[in-house]
C-alpha cells in the first residue's frame, strides 16, 4: 500500500536487499582504508539514524513537535555510564543495561508526555525544549550533595561492550581481516539499525500507526472515531524516547566518555533537521536525512582546508567557518527546492502529483 521504495517485483526487491547488505558488510573496510576516523564517523552517523527514527515516530507519525528529544539520548547514555563505569564501581553487561536504558528513557518519555497531552504545535515545542534543557541542567548539577552524575566533568572510563572475553574495544584478526573496535561496533549498530527500521515500517502500516496519523491530521475527529488519543500520544512519546535511550547507551559505550556537553539544544535541533530534511513520516527518507546531515559537515571538515591550499596556496578563511557556512547554505537550498524533504512520504508525493493534475 505504501511501498517506501519503488519495488515493482519481488525479484528486484530481493536483489536490492542483497546488494545493500553486501555494501553494508564491505563498507567499514573500505572506510578503514581511508582512515579509521571514518569508521567512527559512520558509527556516529548510525546513532543519528536511530535517533531520527525515534523522533520520526513522535514528529512524523503522531505530529507532535518535540524540540527536546536529545534528553532521552542523554538519559540512555547516563544510565549506561552509571551502570558500567568505575564511577559507582558497577560493571553490568551491556545486554542488561541497554534494555534498562530503554525503559528509563521510556519512563521519561511518559513523564514529558503526560503534562503536555493538551498542547500542540508551538506550545508543545516550547515545553519540550524546556524539558530538554532541564535534563541537561540536572546532569550538570547532580554532583552535589550526592555525586550522581559527576557534573560538568562527565563520566570517564565507561566500559565497552563485552561478551565474556570478547571485547568490542580490542582489535582482532580473523581470516586475514583486521576487525578493529570501531568496525565491531559498526556491525552491531547496523544490525540494531536494520531491526529498528523494520520495526518502524511495521508500526507505520498498522492499526497503531494509523491511529497516530489520525491524531496528526485531526485530533477531535480521531477521538470521535474511538481513538484513545491520550494513550496513543503517550505511546508515541514512550516509543520515541526508548529508541533514543538505546542509542544513548551505545553512544556511551562507543565514546567511553560522556558529559552534559554532548546533549545540548543544538543536538535536538540537528536531529529534527534530519527528520525534516529527509522527509517527515517516510522511514527511508529519515534514514537518508540522518546520513547526509551527519556526513556532510565531516566531509567538509576534511576538504575545505586542502582545497583552499590548492587554489590559493594558503588558508584564506578559517575552514571551520566556511564549513558551517556551506552547510547552512546547502540546508537553505534544500528547503527551497525540496520543501517536503529528499524522499517525501508516499502521502506527500501523492499530494504533489494530484496537485499537478487538477481534478474535478
Amino acid at each position, binding site marked *: 500500500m505504501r511501498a517506501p521504495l519503488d519495488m515493482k517485483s519481488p525479484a528486484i526487491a530481493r536483489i536490492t536487499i542483497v546488494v545493500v547488505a553486501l555494501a553494508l558488510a564491505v563498507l567499514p573496510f573500505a572506510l578503514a582504508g581511508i582512515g579509521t576516523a571514518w569508521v567512527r564517523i559512520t558509527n556516529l552517523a548510525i546513532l543519528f539514524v536511530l535517533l531520527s527514527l525515534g523522533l520520526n515516530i513522535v514528529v512524523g507519525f503522531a505530529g507532535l513537535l518535540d524540540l527536546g528529544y536529545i534528553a532521552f539520548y542523554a538519559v540512555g547514555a547516563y544510565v549506561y555510564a552509571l551502570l558500567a563505569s568505575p564511577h559507582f564501581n558497577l560493571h553490568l553487561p551491556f545486554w542488561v543495561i541497554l534494555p534498562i536504558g530503554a525503559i528509563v528513557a521510556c519512563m521519561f518519555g511518559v513523564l514529558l508526555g503526560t503534562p503536555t497531552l493538551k498542547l500542540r504545535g508551538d506550545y508543545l515545542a516550547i515545553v519540550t525544549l524546556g524539558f530538554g534543557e532541564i535534563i541537561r541542567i540536572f546532569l550538570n548539577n547532580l554532583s552535589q550533595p550526592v555525586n550522581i552524575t559527576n557534573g560538568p566533568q562527565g563520566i570517564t572510563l565507561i566500559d565497552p561492550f563485552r561478551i565474556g572475553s570478547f571485547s568490542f574495544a580490542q582489535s582482532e584478526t580473523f581470516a586475514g581481516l583486521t576487525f578493529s573496535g570501531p568496525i565491531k561496533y559498526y556491525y552491531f549498530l547496523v544490525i540494531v539499525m536494520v531491526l529498528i527500521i523494520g*520495526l518502524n515500517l511495521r*508500526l507505520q502500516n498498522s492499526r497503531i500507526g494509523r491511529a497516530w496519523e489520525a491524531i496528526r491530521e*485531526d485530533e477531535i475527529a*480521531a477521538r*470521535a472515531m474511538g481513538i*484513545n488519543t491520550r494513550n496513543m500520544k503517550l505511546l508515541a512519546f514512550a516509543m520515541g524516547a526508548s529508541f533514543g535511550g538505546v542509542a544513548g547507551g551505545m553512544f556511551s559505550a562507543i565514546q567511553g566518555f560522556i558529559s552534559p556537553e554532548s546533549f545540548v539544544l543544538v543536538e535536538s535541533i540537528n536531529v529534527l533537521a534530519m527528520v525534516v530534511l529527509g522527509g517527515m513520516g517516510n522511514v527511508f527518507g529519515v534514514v537518508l536525512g540522518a546520513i547526509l546531515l551527519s556526513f556532510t559537515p565531516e566531509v567538509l571538515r576534511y576538504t575545505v582546508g586542502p582545497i583552499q591550499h590548492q587554489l590559493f596556496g594558503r588558508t584564506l578563511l578559517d575552514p571551520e567557518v566556511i564549513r558551517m557556512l556551506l552547510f547552512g547554505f546547502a540546508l537553505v537550498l534544500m528547503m527551497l527546492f525540496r520543501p517536503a524533504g529528499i524522499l517525501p512520504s508516499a502521502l506527500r508525493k501523492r*499530494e504533489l502529483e494530484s496537485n499537478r493534475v487538477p481534478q474535478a
Partner: protein
Amino acid sequence: MATGQTLLAATGIAKRFGGVQALSDVSFHIEQGEIYGLIGPNGAGKTSLFNVLTGIYEADGGTFTFAGAPLANLKPHQIAERGIARTFQNIRLFANLSALENVMIGRHVRTHATVLGAVFRGPRTLAEEKGIERRAYELLDYVGVQKRANDLAKHLAYGDQRRLEIARALATEPKLLALDEPAAGMNATETADLRRLLERIRHDGTTILLIEHDMKLVMNVCDRVMVLDYGKKIAEGPAALVQKDEKVVAAYLGGEVTLNLKGTG
C-alpha cells in the same frame, strides 16, 4: 423501521457557555430503527447538543441513557465504543490520508492489535489487518466513493467528502449514527442520493439522528422531528405535524412575520 424500543433517552440536558444558555432542559428519546430529525434556526443549539451527546462538551445538567446504560462522564472515544458515531458540520476528515485509510481508521475501535502485534505481525494481526481493509473497501462501495479509494480525502469533491465521512462513521459499527448537516452544499441529485443512502442505512439496522437544514430531505426521510430554538425544545412529533406548528413557524420566520401571516390568514 421503528421498533418501539428506546435506544437513546435524554433528560433535562443543559449546557451554558459563559452568559449564553446553549441548551436548557432538553429532553427527548430516539427509538431503535428510527430516523430522528433535529431542526431549528442557526444558533438554536443543534450542534451543541451533538457535542454534548458525543462527549466533546461536558453537559452542565441532565443525563443521556444509551442502550440501557447511562453515558455519564464518558470520553468521546468511550462513547464511540458504546456505539455512537458522528459526522461533523464542517467536514473533519483526515485530509492528508487516502479515502481508504480514513475508513480503515474508523475500524480502530473494533480491532485490537497492540504494538507487539503490529511489530511481530502474527497470524491474528494479519487476519485482522485483512479484515480492516476488506471492510473499508465494502463501506466505500456502500456509500459510493469506491473509485476514489486511493485519493487523498482533501481532493475529493464536496459531496464525496460528506459520504466518506459517513463511511468512516459506519466503520465503527454504530448503533446510532449522528449526522450533522450531511446535505449541506449538495445539489439536488446528490441530496436525492443521500436520501436513498440514509434509508438504506436505517434498513440495514442503524438508527439515525439527523441535523439538517434541507427541509425537503427532513420531511421526506425523518419519522419524527424535534425543533430547537434558543436552546429549548419547542416542538416534537411527526414531520408533517411539526411543520404546521405555530411556534415552529414563528421560530423560523420571526415573530412579526407570524403576526402578519395570521392577519392575512
